[in-house]
């Protein structure tokens, strides 16, 4: 009881400040072939109880951004610039031991492939109890109790028996629930979820999405949902940040960005998603391929594939507020689509 009270008071104090603010994050990998700027200027904020959808193609730096927040970037990579402010505390400057105390405790992460995230030779109870004991001084019995309750919370039937099982005795969806339960053990203030439903089938995906949304709303946990699936983001997230070649190219409220994308890349992404309203039409695709991070063109990284690119795109566009609450990194955004008639068309799912 007293713990909940403490939580409410501390949260009231920080209600105005965002849970996480990432400012111009740069994570580079120093390989033999050269410096790979996997994340090169990423900024966003996530508020309490909010879900941020971090969207982009494979290799756009979404996952590395997630690992950077948790301080899990391995050599040859390291954070070379920017701030990761978690309740005002800069995680990028934290010592490893201080970071360890935050990980799994106040900041948790859920991974993509549930078949790979649980250690195959350790029982589920071992893997859950060790997480409890890593951050709180309780008896093993209390830790087990907590593990059992959390398993029940994420919808695993007969958690007492399931605790004694090994990961291979669970299905993929169940394993992801266990991973989510592990992430929730300490009621974290921030969860980084790296494509947690990509490896699951659609029904399980829907169930897990609904539950995660409910949990976030109930506990006030902020969430970064990394995905390449725009339909998941549309249903789940409050805000969206679109990444391309290690940078955020567009940011804003999810409904506005999806209705009326400003950046040509976002535009292309939305155009390439099949939808009921576009039945029979040919899906538009973005020409070309994601450029190698080793040899990015100077200026806007998207200009080689961009239909609106002009000569000034050889300069670097900054992420700037083009409309109230809407940021994009582009010299030639789709601002023409501002007219009310076009807005109507966009609402019907035909943004053009």
């Amino acid at each position, binding site marked *: 009881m007293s713990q909940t009270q403490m939580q409410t008071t501390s949260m009231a104090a920080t209600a105005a400040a965002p849970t996480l603010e990432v400012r111009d994050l740069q994570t580079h990998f120093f390989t033999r072939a050269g410096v790979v700027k996997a994340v090169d200027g990423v900024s966003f904020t996530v508020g309490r109880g909010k879900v941020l959808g971090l969207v982009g193609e494979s290799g756009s730096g979404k996952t590395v951004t997630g690992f950077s927040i948790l301080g899990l970037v391995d050599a040859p990579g390291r954070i070379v610039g920017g701030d990761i402010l978690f309740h005002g505390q800069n995680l990028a400057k934290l010592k490893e031991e201080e970071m360890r105390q935050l990980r799994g405790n106040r900041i948790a992460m859920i991974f993509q492939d549930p078949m790979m995230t649980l*250690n*195959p030779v350790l029982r589920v109870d071992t893997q859950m109890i060790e997480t409890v004991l890593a951050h709180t001084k309780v008896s093993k019995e209390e830790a087990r109790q907590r593990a059992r309750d959390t398993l029940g919370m994420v919808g695993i039937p007969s958690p007492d028996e399931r605790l004694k099982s090994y990961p291979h005795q669970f299905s993929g969806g169940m394993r992801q629930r266990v991973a989510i339960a592990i992430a929730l053990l300490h009621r974290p203030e921030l969860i980084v979820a790296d494509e947690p439903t990509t490896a699951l089938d659609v029904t399980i995906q829907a169930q897990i999405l609904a539950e995660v949304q409910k949990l976030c709303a109930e506990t006030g946990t902020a969430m970064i949902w990394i995905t390449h699936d725009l339909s998941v983001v549309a249903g789940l997230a409050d805000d969206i940040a679109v990444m391309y070649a290690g940078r955020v190219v567009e940011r804003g409220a999810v409904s506005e960005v999806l209705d009326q994308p400003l950046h040509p890349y976002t535009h292309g992404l939305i155009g390439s998603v099949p939808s009921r309203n576009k039945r029979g039409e040919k899906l538009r695709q973005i020409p070309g391929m994601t450029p190698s991070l080793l040899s990015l063109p100077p200026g806007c990284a998207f200009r080689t594939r961009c239909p609106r690119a002009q000569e000034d795109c050889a300069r670097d566009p900054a992420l700037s507020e083009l409309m109230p609450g809407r940021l994009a990194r582009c010299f030639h955004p789709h601002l023409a689509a501002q007219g009310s008639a076009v807005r109507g068309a966009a609402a019907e799912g035909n943004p053009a």
Partner: protein
Amino acid sequence: MAVYLLRRLLQSALVMLAMSVIVFIGVYAIGDPVEILISPDADQMERERAIKALGLDLPLWMQYLSFLGNALRGDLGRSFVFNEPALQLILQRMPATLELAFGAMFIALLIGLPLGLYAGLKPNSTGSKLVMAGSILGFSLPTFWVGLMLIMVFAVQLGWLPSTGRGPTVEVLGLRWSFLTWDGLRHLAMPALNLALFKISLVIRLTRAGVRETMLMDYVKFARAKGLSPARVTYVHVFKNILIPVVTVVGLELGSTIAFSVVTESVFAWPGMGKLIIDSINVLDRPVIVAYLMIIVLMFITINLLVDLAYSALDPRVRLENK
């Protein structure tokens, strides 16, 4: 589990039977022991009497059947040379070889696991490069030469350890063991280390490869994302996974160490089974050779079974049940 064990035992019996045929025919094919055993100036009568006494006048299949019949009663024949039951002869020497082999395995794990772990966790450090280079030496230096060098340095030059023999023994469970006395341990140290050298290298390389592979797995990163201490990640999450291949290989190596410690036993004059079998082959003491090979086959079968059981204990995905 019971069904599994029963099936394994049945399989083992078949393997033993097949091996007994191969061994018996194989040994029969090499030379005539009579030429070696009977003095050259014995006359025809004596020769024939000896041949009859040894049962060598019967056709091969009859010799085999009588061997098989006796073997089932626990009698693997009498040594031509020592005129003692072959089985008893071998079992007398067995403790010496066993303690040598287990000593070697113990040293191999004691040195190999930590070094392999270190080399796997810090693959680019100078220390781990030295360890890997050293392991190449362990693989490639011939055992007999290293044995002689050990004797030169530690027994002759420094005088720290005795050069040969087994030292005093203590009788436990009716068998004579030397590792229970201090002097016995001193005698055991050098031959065990010599025999362990190859296995240390093997364990180092296995462990290092396992660590490097496991460190890249998602579950290790997830374990770190849970906020576990680096020690817990290494010694629980990584270590338990790399033990699986190490146990398998070390188990099988144990069999070959016991069976083929011949060179080390010869260099250090260690009175074990290896020395016995070499002597027996030299004088074509058939019953001893056959009995020795049969015991080795039995031992390999047993070790394989134990390795499988250990494997299933370590890896929950492998369960020895027949559904």
